[in-house]
């Protein structure tokens, strides 16, 4: 007998059948999910036996860290996961991670912050490992100095850069200057700027970004150092702004550039966004810069013929600001030895030449600055050799003194150079430097 079934009955049957199906599907799914969970849970356990997974933090800079990590991961059992942190947030995030007990295993730190980290006990002491390196003395001295605290090593260089002056060869020639003999004193620089400035209303002898504190630490401090002066005492314990006559003379030098209109007026408020862009315009004779900008000028502005010279002192001599990053092992990591194995590998000749030099980056070992890649373009030899006269202030309050856009360094420069109040600038700088250094 065929059972009759109306619409409602049919829908009920359908609904019942669907529920049974769902119940079955749910049961199967649950089993499958449990199985998957077991497999997933077992994977790391199995992996933990023979593989170390490390984390590495790096700030947003254009160095070849990713290439280094890729090469390491391809050839080693231990694996590194690279995390890029915005430069402005790096120190805060590192501090928070260390405080939370979850630091990265390896960190590439802006070298100026290293004393702050090492003095607070936030980095692993790597002195014995560093001493065992046969080429320890060959590593860039400014970075090694900043990586030390109370005679112990806490970091080694990983990304190095030194400041120098870039100049426009075509403008030099048009102004009747010899591009093969660039200026070697402040007086010669001023003469060259005046000659270039005279070429036209839109052509200027020089560029500095006077709204950017860090840019001027990088490019203006070497003028003082090359002349035998400094804004800090030899032991970095006090400010020497009013007592060192070279500081005054260097301010007068930069003030003359401003007063004579040898820089565009916009330089007075540039916060660094035009630090490298300005020279790319082709109407600037000279500018302070670093190795980080060379590849860009070469590749993106092939029509600009440029060359480099080291930052000169008042009557000769040269100096450079040693910038870039050091690499360190944050305290609290469980993989310090494996982290050092990676760091040590980055310092060996293979990666230094095949990854660093091949990508236009300066090797961190001085003896490797002259290599097959840099010899293809002698300008890279000049930029690399700047680090041999490289220097970096060693102070735990570097950021407060030099890098802060509202700090004493930039205010002193603006008052002295733009306002022409040299005495006021020196007094202000001395007072605020002392105040910050005394805590």
């Amino acid at each position: 007998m065929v059972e009759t079934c109306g619409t409602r009955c049919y829908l009920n049957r359908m609904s019942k059948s669907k529920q049974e199906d769902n119940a079955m599907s749910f049961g199967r799914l649950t089993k499958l999910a449990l199985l998957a969970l077991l497999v997933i849970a077992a994977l790391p356990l199995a992996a933990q036996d023979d593989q170390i997974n490390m984390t590495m933090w790096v700030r947003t800079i254009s160095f070849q860290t990713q290439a280094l990590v890729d090469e390491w991961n391809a050839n080693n059992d231990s694996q590194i996961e690279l995390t890029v942190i915005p430069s402005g947030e790096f120190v805060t995030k590192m501090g928070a991670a260390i405080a939370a007990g979850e630091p990265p295993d390896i960190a590439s730190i802006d070298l100026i912050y290293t004393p702050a980290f090492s003095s607070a006990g936030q980095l692993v002491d790597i002195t014995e490992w560093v001493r065992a390196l046969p080429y320890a003395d060959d590593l860039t001295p400014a970075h090694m100095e900043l990586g030390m605290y109370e005679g112990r090593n806490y970091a080694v260089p990983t990304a190095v850069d030194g400041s120098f002056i870039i100049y426009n060869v075509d403008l030099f020639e048009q102004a009747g200057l010899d591009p093969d003999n660039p200026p070697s004193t402040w007086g010669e620089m001023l003469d060259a700027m005046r000659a270039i400035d005279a070429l036209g209303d839109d052509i200027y002898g020089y560029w500095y970004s006077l709204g950017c504190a860090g840019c001027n630490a990088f490019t203006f401090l070497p003028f003082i150092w090359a002349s035998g002066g400094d804004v800090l005492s030899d032991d970095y314990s006090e400010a020497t702004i009013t007592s060192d006559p070279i500081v005054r003379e260097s301010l007068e030098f930069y003030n003359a550039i401003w007063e004579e209109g040898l820089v565009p007026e916009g330089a007075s408020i540039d916060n660094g966004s035009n630090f490298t862009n300005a020279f790319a315009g082709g109407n600037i004779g000279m500018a302070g810069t670093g190795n980080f900008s060379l590849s860009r000028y070469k590749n993106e502005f092939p029509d600009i013929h440029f060359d480099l010279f080291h930052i000169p002192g008042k009557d000769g001599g040269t100096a450079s600001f040693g910038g870039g990053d050091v690499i360190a092992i944050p305290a609290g990591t469980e993989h310090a030895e494996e982290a050092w194995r990676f760091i040590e590998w980055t310092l060996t000749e293979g990666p230094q030449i095949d990854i660093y030099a091949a990508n236009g980056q300066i090797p961190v070992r001085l003896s490797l600055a002259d290599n097959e890649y840099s010899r293809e373009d002698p300008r890279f030899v000049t930029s690399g050799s700047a680090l041999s006269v490289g220097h970096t202030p060693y102070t735990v309050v570097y950021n407060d003194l030099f890098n802060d856009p509202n700090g004493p360094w930039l205010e002193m420069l603006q008052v002295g150079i733009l306002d022409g109040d040299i005495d006021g600038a020196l007094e202000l700088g001395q007072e605020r430097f002392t105040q910050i250094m005394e805590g």
Partner: protein
Amino acid sequence: MIRQAAVWNLSWEQRRKLTGFLFVLPTVAFVTIFFIVPLGLTFFISLHDWPLFGDRAYIGFSNYSELAADRQYVKSLNFTFRYTLLITPPIFILGFILASLVRRKIRFVGIFRTIFFMPVVIGLGVSSLLWVWLLDDRVGIFNKILLDLNLVPKAQLFLGRPNTAMNVIILSVVWKTVGFTMILLLAGLQAISDELYESAEVDGAGYFKKLFYITLPLMRRTIALALVISVIGSVLAFDQFYIMTRGGPRNSTISIVYWIFNNSFTYFKMGYGAAMSIVLLGILVALTGAQLYILREKD
């Protein structure tokens, strides 16, 4: 079952109170988690020497006593009050004029309301970047117009001098925020019955008499709200100075929040930054209280 019985055993009044409590509970929880607890933590931090790295130490009220000797703190407070005094009238007056213009339901009024309100939905950071570009001496449209009209001999560095920097920042923030004040005041204007104006007109009242005897008195609460929001926003100003001038030129545009930010996240003096924040909170409470007292309904 027991709980259900317990609820049903309550009196009507008790149940009414419980219902009321349950209604406000989400807000109480929200305020507790996102205001009371952070405020307590901030006060706790303010009693410590609290660096980013290393050990922290209890120092009592030393951070507070340091404030008086901090010249930049006093300078930043003065700057912030001057900025607030300068920016509040244009925001309010322009907001009132715009609200009056778009009050009537006439053709295309919706389009104008949208246009006036549009800058409000842009983030202050984005609008500040936009204005930096507009004011640029090489590619900015303002300099282009001024030069083409021969109003200036050469491109102006608007953000390069303390006074002009302050003026153009005020201009940018008024453009950005006036739409919000307009909407607040529009709501107040629309709440006033047309019959009142008609009666006043019959009695021979002109525009200003209607404005001063009807509109403004009846908008007292709305005006108080608009002013309180505007003043709080101005005292807490940060983004525009951080992005447009970085506190320059010569540290002349460092607002109080900017100084708190610098101490907390540039110099990593968390305790000191927290102490300044607590004092600023006190100042804001006093300012808001004073405004509400002055603009209270006088029955």
